[in-house]
């Protein structure tokens, strides 16, 4: 049976400068777990995508001072990393549409529409739950 080996949690305002904070926090958490540079790049990428989505889409048009993004990392004995990014923003109206490569609601801002497809491809599993009260993304990555 797998057991929890380590856990870290942080929360920060939905400000774009915190995207790098989220990546550094995550890189620090996995630092001693023997991950390869390639695996570390994948992990940083999925965290960056999820946090950026929360900031750009979840809290779009809202005051950043009252908008929080939550990042939780859990590492289990079976060498699995679970990454959860949660926001209390407006939610995703159509998840299936959002998962389509190059689908974006912000073409003018040069959003590529590849955030969710990249998160899906770079993680071993992706679970997305969303309502008008917020969005939660949970990604699983085997650190082998």
């Amino acid at each position, binding site marked *: 049976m797998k057991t929890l080996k380590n856990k870290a949690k942080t929360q920060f305002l939905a400000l774009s400068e915190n995207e790098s904070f989220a990546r550094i926090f995550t890189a620090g958490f996995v630092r001693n777990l023997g991950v390869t540079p390639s695996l570390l*790049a994948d992990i940083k*990428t999925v965290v960056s*995508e999820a946090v950026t989505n929360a900031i750009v889409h979840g809290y779009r048009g809202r005051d950043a001072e009252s908008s929080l993004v939550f990042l939780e990392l859990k590492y289990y004995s079976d060498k699995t990393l679970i990454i959860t990014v949660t926001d209390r923003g407006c939610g995703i109206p159509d998840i299936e549409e959002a998962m389509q490569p190059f689908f974006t609601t912000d073409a003018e*801002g*040069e*959003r590529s529409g590849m955030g969710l*497809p990249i998160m899906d491809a770079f993680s071993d599993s992706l679970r997305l739950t969303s309502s008008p009260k917020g969005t939660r993304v949970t990604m699983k990555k085997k650190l082998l």
Partner: protein
Amino acid sequence: MKTQSAFKNGEYIVRISGDIDHHTTLGIREEIDAGLVTNKPKRLILDLSETDFMDSSGLGLILGRLRKCTEAQIGFVLVNPRPPVIKILRLAGVEKMLDIRIL
């Protein structure tokens, strides 16, 4: 993130060091686009040899510059992207649309 740019022989070379994410893309985009207007180059060269990290925001930046350069008939070259950057370009299926040079 830091950018260094140079213009010589009709080539506008921009080296991007550090991370390309949603936070940094706006500044990079504004700088490159202003340089395109000022320098009127024949070719834009993005040197990614010192780019440590890039996510889908960087992909949007690259595809946006490709579109802009194509419309203005300016050549567009990516130089020395590191493996994680190539992985993103490949996943998006845009690697073959781009002139990528490993020097």
